[in-house]
C-alpha cells in the first residue's frame, strides 16, 4: 500500500496494468484499500491479445463494474490486421500483441507510471529488478540507469520521455500471494481451480481448448480431464496441470509440495533462460 500510495502521490498519470491473473487481483484489492474511502485515483489498463480465455474477459468486465475502477482495453489493431498466430509463432505473437501493444497503449495515453504485478521470485532474471524501474525513451530498460533504493526511498523524478514501471509485489512470493488471497477472501478467475475441462496435448503441453480457432491436428483428440492453471495468459500458450485442487486450501497444499516452478506452465518461456531479460529490454514488463 505504501508503494501504491507513493506512486499516486509522486507521479502525474499512473495506471494499473491489469492482467486478470491472481497478482492483478491482489494489486487491485490493495489499491482499493490504500485509497479507501476515495475511489482509486487511477484507471486500469488491460492489454488484450484477443486470445485470452473467455472466463478471463467475463471476470475482468465484472470486476470493473463492481469496483467502479475505470477499465481501458487496448488491442494492437495492426497485429489484428496482420493476423498473428500464437500457435505457430508464439514469440512473434507475444511481441506484437503484448509487448508492442503495451508500449502503444502507454504512449498513446501518456501514462508516466505503470503499476504491474511482477514479483522478483518469478525468475532469476528478475532478482535485481527495482521496485520503481526506470524506462528510457521507447520504454527501454537500461540496467545501468536503475536507481538504488535504500530504505525503500524511491526516487520518482523523470525526464521527458522517461517512464516508470512500478512493482509493489516485488518482495512477495507465489505462496505469499495465495496466502493473502485466502486471508482477505479475494476473488480470482475460476480457471485457477481444478475442474473437468476438455484438454488436448500439443508439443508436450496440456492445453484446454477455449474456442474453435485452433483445429485439432491428426492424432490429437479432446480428452476430459480434471485440470487447473497456475498462471493465466493466451490460452494456446498456457499449459494446464492435472490437479484436484478445487479450492484455495487445495492450491496452497499443492504448492507446498509441488516441484515445478510457476513459469514451467508458460509455453513461451521454454526458450533459453536469458529470454526474460531480452523481453524486459524490449518492454514486455
Amino acid at each position: 500500500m505504501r508503494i501504491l500510495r507513493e506512486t499516486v502521490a509522486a507521479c502525474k498519470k499512473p495506471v494499473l496494468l491489469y492482467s486478470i491473473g491472481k497478482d492483478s487481483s491482489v494489486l487491485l484489492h490493495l489499491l482499493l484499500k490504500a485509497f479507501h474511502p476515495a475511489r482509486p485515483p487511477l484507471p486500469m489498463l488491460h492489454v488484450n491479445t484477443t486470445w485470452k480465455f473467455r472466463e478471463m474477459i467475463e471476470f475482468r468486465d465484472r470486476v470493473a463494474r463492481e469496483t467502479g475502477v475505470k477499465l481501458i482495453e487496448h488491442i494492437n489493431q495492426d497485429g489484428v490486421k496482420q493476423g498473428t498466430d500464437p500457435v505457430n509463432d508464439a514469440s512473434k505473437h507475444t511481441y506484437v500483441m503484448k509487448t508492442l501493444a503495451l508500449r502503444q497503449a502507454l504512449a498513446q495515453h501518456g501514462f508516466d507510471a505503470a503499476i504491474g504485478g511482477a514479483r522478483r521470485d518469478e525468475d532469476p532474471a528478475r532478482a535485481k529488478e527495482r521496485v520503481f524501474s526506470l524506462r528510457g525513451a521507447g520504454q527501454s530498460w537500461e540496467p545501468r540507469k536503475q536507481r538504488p533504493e535504500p530504505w525503500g526511498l524511491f526516487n520518482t523524478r523523470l525526464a521527458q520521455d522517461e517512464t516508470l514501471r512500478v512493482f509493489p509485489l516485488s518482495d512477495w512470493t507465489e505462496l505469499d500471494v495465495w496466502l493473502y488471497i485466502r486471508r482477505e477472501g479475494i476473488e480470482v478467475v475460476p480457471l485457477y481451480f481444478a475442474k473437468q475441462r476438455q484438454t488436448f496435448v500439443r508439443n508436450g503441453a496440456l492445453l484446454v481448448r477455449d474456442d474453435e480457432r485452433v483445429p485439432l491436428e491428426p492424432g490429437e483428440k479432446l480428452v476430459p480431464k480434471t485440470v487447473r492453471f497456475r498462471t493465466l495468459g493466451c490460452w494456446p500458450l498456457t499449459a494446464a496441470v492435472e490437479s484436484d485442487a478445487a479450492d484455495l486450501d487445495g492450491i496452497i497444499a499443492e504448492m507446498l509440495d509441488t516441484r515445478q516452478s510457476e513459469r514451467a506452465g508458460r509455453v513461451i518461456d521454454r526458450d533459453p533462460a536469458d529470454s526474460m531479460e531480452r523481453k524486459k529490454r524490449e518492454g514486455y514488463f
Partner: protein
Amino acid sequence: MKATSDERAAAAGAAHALAARLAALETRDTLRFAMCGSVDDGKSTLLGRLLAEAGMIPDDRLAQMVRDSKTHGTQGGRPDYSLLLDGLEAEREQGITIDVAWRYFGTDKRAFIVADCPGHAQYTRNMASGASNAELGIVLVDARAGVQTQTRRHTAILAMFGVRRVLFAVNKLDLIDYNHARYHAIEQECIKLAQDLGVDAADAIPVSAINADNLVAHSPKTPWYTGKPLLEYLETVQVERKVDEAFALSVQWVNRPNHDFRGYAGTITGGRVAPGNEVVVLPSGRLSRIARVIGGDRDLESAEAGQAVTLTLTDQIDVARGDVIADPALPPDVAAQFACHLLWLDDAALLPGRRYLMKLATRVLGAQVTEIKHRIDPDTQAHLAATRLVANEIGYCNLSLDAEVAFRPYQQDRRLGSFILVDRESNATVGCGTLDFGLRRDSNVHWQQLDVDRVSRARIKGQAPRCLWFTGLSGAGKSTIANLVERRLLADGFHTILLDGDNVRHGLNRDLGFTDSDRVENIRRVAEVSKLMMDAGLIVLVSFISPFRAERRMARDLIGESGFMEVFVDAPLAICETRDVKGLYAKARAGKIANFTGIGSPYEAPESPEIHLHSDRESAAESAARVVKVLID
C-alpha cells in the same frame, strides 16, 4: 466406490495436517538478511546450495542448473549451484555479479528475504541497498584466508547501516581439512572484529558450500561444532527489531474524496496509535487529536508500526504530504541543519555547496552539503580530510536544507533517520545517508532583526531590487550589453551595481581557481553578494559566463525566484570565436587553456531564461534596450 474408513481417516488426517501448516504459515515472521562476501568466497554457491538442500528449488530449475553446469559451470561439469542464482545475460558473460539480487525462500517457521550483495569493487554502493533494511548480516569468510580487509569492510558497512547482528559463515572448510584449531582461530578473530566495530551480537558457523556441510544438517566432518546448522540458525536467530516506541507517521497522501472527509494516509514508522490520542503535526507544531484510524476499508481500534493506515483528525488543520504526525510526548526533532553520514553513489563527485534534492521519508526538498567534516577510511575507519566525495566513499558531513523537517537519529529510527540525495539535472540518485543529530545553528546564530529592511531601502530609491544574471559564452557580448544597460538605468535615475566575472576574480574570489568545487564556490559568493546588494535596495547586474545549469539554479535559489532574471546572451560559438576580444579562444585552441568554455568544457544553454538575446542578429544597443524595457515593465 465407497471410501473405506481407512481412506476417510487418511483424508481427515491430511486435512488436519494442512490446517496446522496453514496456521503456521499465517503466523510465521519474516527475517531480512544481507549476504556479503568478496568475489570467490563462495557466496553464490552457498546460497544456491542452501536453497537446494532445503528443498526450495523446483525440479525444473534444478534440472536446468545441472544442464547449464555442463556448458558454463565452474565445476568441470559437476552441478554448479551458483548457477541457480545468476540472472542477467551481461553478468553471465562477464562471469561477475553486478548488482544486489533479492532472493526469497521460506520454511514453516520463517520466511526469508535475502539481499545478495556482490563483492567486487562497487561493493559499498551495492551493500547500501542490501544493508539498509537488513536485520542480520551474513559475512562470508574463506577459511584458507581468514579475516581479510574485505571482511572488515563488509562488517563495518553493516554496522554503519545499523545491522545489529552479524553471522560469519566460514566457508571452504574442506580446503583446510575441517581443522578445528584453524577454524577456532578464525572464529575468535571474527568475533573480535565485530565487537571492535560496535556490532551488538556476532556468531560464526563452519561450512562447506560445495559439500553442504552444516547447511541444513550437522556435518559428521565437524563433530567439534556444537552450534546450529545454518538453516536452523536462520529459523531461530533472535534479532532486535528496532522500531521507535513513540508513535510517528509520515504523511504520504492526503485523501480528500469529498468535503466531509479529509484523511492522512501513510505508514506508521514507530509506536501505536488509537482514536482519541493527542498528536502533534510537524514541523508546524500544531496539536490535534486522532478521530479515526482506518486500515483498508474498516475502522481500527488501534494500529502499530509497519501498518499502512489513514488517519483523520478532530480539527481542521493544515497537513500536507511530507508532514509528520506524532506523539506530542515524545515527538521527533525538527531541524534544517544536520550532521550525517553520507555514502556517495554517483560517478560525478559530491561538491559541497552544490544543490541537490533530498528525500527523507515522504518529504522532498532542496539540500546542500555545507561541509565535509571528514571521510572515513573503509579499511581502518580512520578519519581523513576531504574536500569532495567520489563514488563509494563515505563522509561525515553537515547538511543544510531549505526548510525544517521532522526527523529522528538513524540509530533510533531507520525510517525517519535516512535519506537519499537526487541530482536536479540528471535525476539520478547520487547519494544516501543517515542522520545523526540536528545542528541548532539556526537557533544559535540568530538572524539580527533589522528595523530597516529591503523594501524600505528600495522605496526611497523608487525602485524594486532585481538581479539581472547575464550568462553566455566568452565574447557573446555579456559585458558590453550589461554596461549599456547600466548606463541607461543610471541615466533614468536608478541605483545599480555591476559585478563582472573577471573583476570579481581579481578581488573577492582571487583565492579560487577553476576546479569544479571552486566554480561552485565562486558562484555561491557572487550570489550571496548580489543578495546583500539587493537588500541594500539596488538593481544588481551580474555578468558571468556561468556555463552550468546547476550553478545558475543555485544562484536563482539563493537569490529567490521573484528577484532573479536570467538574461541569456546567445551567439553561435563560431561568431564568438571570430570576435575573440581577449584572445582567449586562440589560446584555448592552441591548448594553452584547459577546460575553456565552448572548447574544452561545455556550455549548457538556459532552458527558459527570462530574457533571450541574440547578439549575432541585433546590435548591443538594441539588446540593452530590450532588457531595460522588460525590467521597467
